[in-house]
């Protein structure tokens, strides 16, 4: 064993070579230097009653182990344009996955199990999608054509997603510039994955077929912060219609990232916009690292085309070491990577090296559960010294080489070797085109090979749907207030910026505006009431509040001639007891109507008492003591400033 070699040092050294800058220290110049470019695909579920192509209800979710029936399917690649199976197709076929669908009677019909052609497209969904497309200032198509986009991972039982373009082009304003859109499509949502272990992947069909829009931007965001800003904007815009679904999984983002010399990598299904900046930052550096690795390999190995791995099957009885591989009846294979020294422990992401790129692929393509490999540059390889010695003898290991050892069932060994060789060969060319899964810590894992454009087919089961001019005119007349107008409003009303997201995300501007106008309340008061007070109370008490009721509460106060100040006290009880009527709230608060002059008449009693008994030297302490005595009686009856002024006047006398 090469005891001289220090993998930890190599990782650290290569990290510096790549020039990795921690996210907190990165500036706009950092990203300009990398040639950072990013585009977004925002998926947003629509609030309809039924699914897109069948009449099953939407938004009814099952527990994963609560199902009425199971179904087994396998996905086969179909022949595509050039008579070759496309990359993703081939990969999915190699994995030989058995796909199991868990059905619930309430949310699945023959359409979900691909045993009937689609019913006519849901018109409600079409109109919502058109409305959002109009808000994005897009060109609406003359005729909607339903297209099949192939997915062989089994997430849709047909093997393809039915999707259709509603509008193309369009743009959104960010703080510094405009970002253009490529298109907006209306599509059916996929199944939820229950598990994916070995050769068996399980899905629940409850979410399958729910209407979803996908908004795609051009790759024009040049910093991670811009990406998040655009994501927020598109989300607020969709929500401003009040016709989209909210809650966990209702909006998901795919983020495309590339750097100079790199390639478009898609980070799929990011559930939180707040994760986007770090994910894109780290992905940019992963690409940079792979480009450094590419240069290094091409310097070291002169004939990349003829580069091959050398393999040797090991006898388990010869390996007198406890191995970490899960599963039984395993075969053990040692793989020599000629000339790969220093590559396996090369930095790719914080805490992850090049070997982890291979390990991810072994899991996904060869279905080998992790930990699925040991290699010559693991920090703790000394623990497997006997195995390492055996492998190095068997493989004729040289000082420029690296090795990987993996184990799996006999049927998966060939795919495992192919996968390792393929990933290493790809390193000579740079960055493999793939989709990746984003983790909360900002790193990503290999998910699938990125499919080509030729996985789109016309849906022969559906006729094109003409979009009449009258429909566009009708929808245009009903559009909600545009987002830039809302932002200007918030700024004009001097609403604190920390309120904006909450108001826009929950589409509360229309209700706030109505209250402000109808009851002539100060805008800033209403907005902070919603986005500070109610938001805080709701979170603290883990309750929810239906904002539509806020209007009736203001209306109640107006009718009873109660000042707005009392509303917070009332709300704190209402949020705790949502069904309570407003009069009972007043009773609970012990609140009584009182005229200003009656209240003012009580002031001398308190001021005299405080001045006589306490001998307070400081006037303002005396004032606040009296205020404290009278505050509850004044609240909702008299303006507080007025009471205070009155007390002050008396105290100073």
């Amino acid at each position, binding site marked *: 064993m090469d005891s001289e070699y220090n993998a930890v040092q190599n990782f650290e050294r290569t990290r510096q070579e790549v020039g990795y800058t921690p996210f907190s220290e990165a500036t706009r110049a950092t990203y300009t230097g990398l040639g950072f470019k990013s585009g977004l695909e925002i998926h947003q579920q629509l609030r309809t009653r039924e699914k897109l192509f069948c009449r099953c209800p939407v938004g009814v979710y099952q527990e994963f182990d609560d199902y*009425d029936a199971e179904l087994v399917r396998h996905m086969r690649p179909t022949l595509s344009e050039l008579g070759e199976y496309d990359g993703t197709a081939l990969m999915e076929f190699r994995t030989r996955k058995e796909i199991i669908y868990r059905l619930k009677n309430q949310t699945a019909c023959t359409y979900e199990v691909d*045993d009937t052609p689609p019913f006519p497209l849901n018109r409600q969904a079409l109109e919502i999608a058109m409305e959002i497309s109009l808000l994005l200032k897009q*060109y609406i198509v003359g005729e*909607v054509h339903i*297209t099949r986009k192939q997915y062989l991972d089994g997430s849709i039982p*047909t093997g393809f997603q039915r999707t259709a373009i509603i509008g193309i082009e369009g743009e959104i304003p960010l703080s510094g510039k405009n970002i253009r859109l490529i298109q907006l499509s209306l599509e059916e949502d996929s199944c939820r994955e229950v598990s994916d272990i070995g050769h068996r992947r399980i899905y629940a069909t409850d979410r399958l077929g729910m209407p979803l829009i996908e908004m795609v931007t051009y790759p024009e965001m040049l910093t991670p912060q811009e990406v998040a800003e655009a994501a927020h904007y598109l989300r607020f815009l969709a929500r401003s219609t009040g016709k989209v679904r909210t809650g966990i999984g209702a909006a998901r983002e795919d983020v495309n990232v590339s750097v100079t010399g790199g390639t478009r990598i898609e980070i799929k299904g990011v559930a939180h916009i707040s994760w986007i900046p770090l994910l894109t930052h780290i992905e940019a550096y992963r690409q940079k690292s792979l480009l450094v690795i590419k240069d290094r390999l091409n310097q070291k190995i002169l004939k990349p085309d003829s580069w091959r791995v050398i393999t040797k099957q090991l006898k388990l009885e010869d390996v007198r070491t406890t191995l970490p591989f899960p599963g039984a009846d395993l075969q053990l294979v040692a793989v020599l990577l000629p000339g790969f020294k220093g590559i396996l422990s090369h930095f790719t992401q914080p805490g992850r090296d090049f070997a982890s790129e291979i390990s991810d692929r072994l899991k996904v393509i060869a279905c080998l559960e992790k930990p699925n490999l040991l290699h010559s540059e693991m920090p703790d390889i000394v623990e497997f010294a006997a195995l390492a010695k055996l492998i190095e003898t068997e493989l004729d290991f040289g000082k420029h080489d690296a090795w990987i050892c993996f184990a799996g069932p006999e049927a998966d060994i060939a795919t495992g070797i192919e996968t390792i060789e393929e990933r290493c060969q790809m390193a000579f060319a740079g960055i493999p085109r793939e989709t990746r899964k984003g983790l909360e810590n900002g790193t990503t894992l290999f998910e699938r090979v990125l499919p080509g454009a030729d996985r789109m087919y016309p849906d022969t089961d559906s006729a094109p749907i003409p*979009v009449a*001019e009258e429909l566009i005119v009708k929808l245009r007349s009903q559009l909600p207030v545009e987002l830039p107008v809302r932002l200007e409003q918030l700024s004009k009303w001097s609403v604190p910026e920390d309120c904006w997201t909450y108001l826009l995300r929950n589409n509360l501007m229309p209700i706030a505006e109505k209250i402000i106008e109808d009851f002539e309340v100060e805008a800033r008061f209403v907005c902070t009431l919603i986005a500070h007070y109610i938001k805080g109370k709701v979170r603290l008490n883990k309750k929810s509040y239906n904002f539509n009721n806020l209007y009736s509460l203001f209306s109640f106060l107006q009718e009873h001639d109660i000042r707005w100040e009392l509303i917070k006290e009332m709300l704190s009880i209402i949020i705790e007891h949502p069904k309570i009527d407003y009069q009972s709230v007043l009773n609970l608060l012990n609140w009584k109507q009182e005229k200003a002059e009656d209240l003012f008449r009580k002031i001398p009693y308190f001021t005299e008492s405080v001045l006589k008994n306490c001998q307070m030297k400081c006037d303002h302490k005396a004032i606040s003591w009296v205020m404290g005595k009278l505050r509850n009686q004044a609240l909702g009856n008299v303006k507080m400033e007025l009471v205070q002024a009155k007390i002050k006047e008396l105290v100073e006398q």
Partner: protein
Amino acid sequence: MTESIQGYKGEALATIKKYNVRVWSDTLIKSSRGEFKGIILPRSENDDTTHIVLKLATGYNVGVDVHTITEMTELGYKEAHYKIPEKEFPYTEGLPKVKLLGTGGTIASRLDYRTGAVIPAFSPGELYGAVPELADICNLDTEKVFAVFSENMGPSQYKKLAITIGEEIEKGTQGIIIGHGTDTLHHTAAALTFMCQNLPIPVVLVGSQRSSDRPSSDAALNLMHAATAAGHGDIAEVMVCMFGPTSDEYGLLHRGTRVRKMHSSYRSTFRTIGDVPLGTVTRAGVTHIHSVFNKRRNDHNVKILPYFEEKVAIVYYYPNMQPDIFDSLVANGYKGIVIAGTGLGHVNKLIYPAIKRAAAAGVAIYMTVQTLWGYVHMFVYDTGRDLMSMGIVPAENMLPEVAYIKLGWVLGQTSDLEKVKEMMLTPVSGEITRGEPYNGYLIYQGGIPEVEEFIRRVHK
């Protein structure tokens, strides 16, 4: 007929001509709804005449309303031609010699991603490219006998297929697969059962309910199952091989005279009616359900009887049916009528006179049941006895479509009504059975607790 270029007619065609652009050209369209850039695709013949179809760079198709178009500019031109890849089907010593006869239905195919047209894969090489697993099952050869859609299959195709089967058996083929659209698969299966008797080898009809251009297609698995049953199975009968459950688990082998398509779109649409299926099939082989069947032999002694009288009809009875239905058949020279009657085999009194007139004209009239399951029992009620006295012959538990095919086949050989009756009521291969197994009729109804429990535990 109106002029049409690649599916474009009327205003759409006029617009294309006006701006001097072509189908397959990369085009920039300016319209009142904005600018669209893409390749002009051919249009489906049945779609309207006011839209032009574009394939955008992203691969999506959209339609542009010709009334909104203000300008079109051709930027380039690229016509697409597509071909299925062909790889030589490998010959493996020791595997059975199986012949696949094509009838025009697409067993394996791919979709032309630009036009949506289906391109069939048929030659052994093309099939090997699409379903390579076939090479592990048999040595496959193929022949396109004719090319018609399932709904256009008829007597002349049945006869030609029967003769081809006879020739193949003579040549030493060890199993035959017939690729067929599913709509009339069971009619063809019945016809071939009557026309090819004393078969020494399996003849397996197969189709698919989800076309093979879809990743979830049942075509590949059906084809593998059919190849296994044809090459390795020991049931030398005409059979239909299609999905048992809707899951990718096993195929069912149905006797050609007892099978029927029972769902318009389900994968597991074919069901044996009035009996249990012959067996199940997986890639591992055939498992028998029925113990009585015609066993595979090594001789070539098949009897090919390619006859068919086309003047035969099925009349599906409904309440208040008028006698003129029968009169018009007789007037048009029909020689045989199969009635699908209600219940045990009944029709109303209103049409008695017409039935009498038909019988007097020498028309062979047979009674079957609309219930599909169960026998005609015409002695139970007076109606039945009346009808028999008029000359209607009860066809036992023959399925209406099977009775139609058999009557056509019998009348193709004789017009002697006594001889016809003898042949009709003497079963060739299970079209009439001596009795019905009590566990044949099992149509489960979802919602019942014990059925739901079964569905939950066993893959559908």
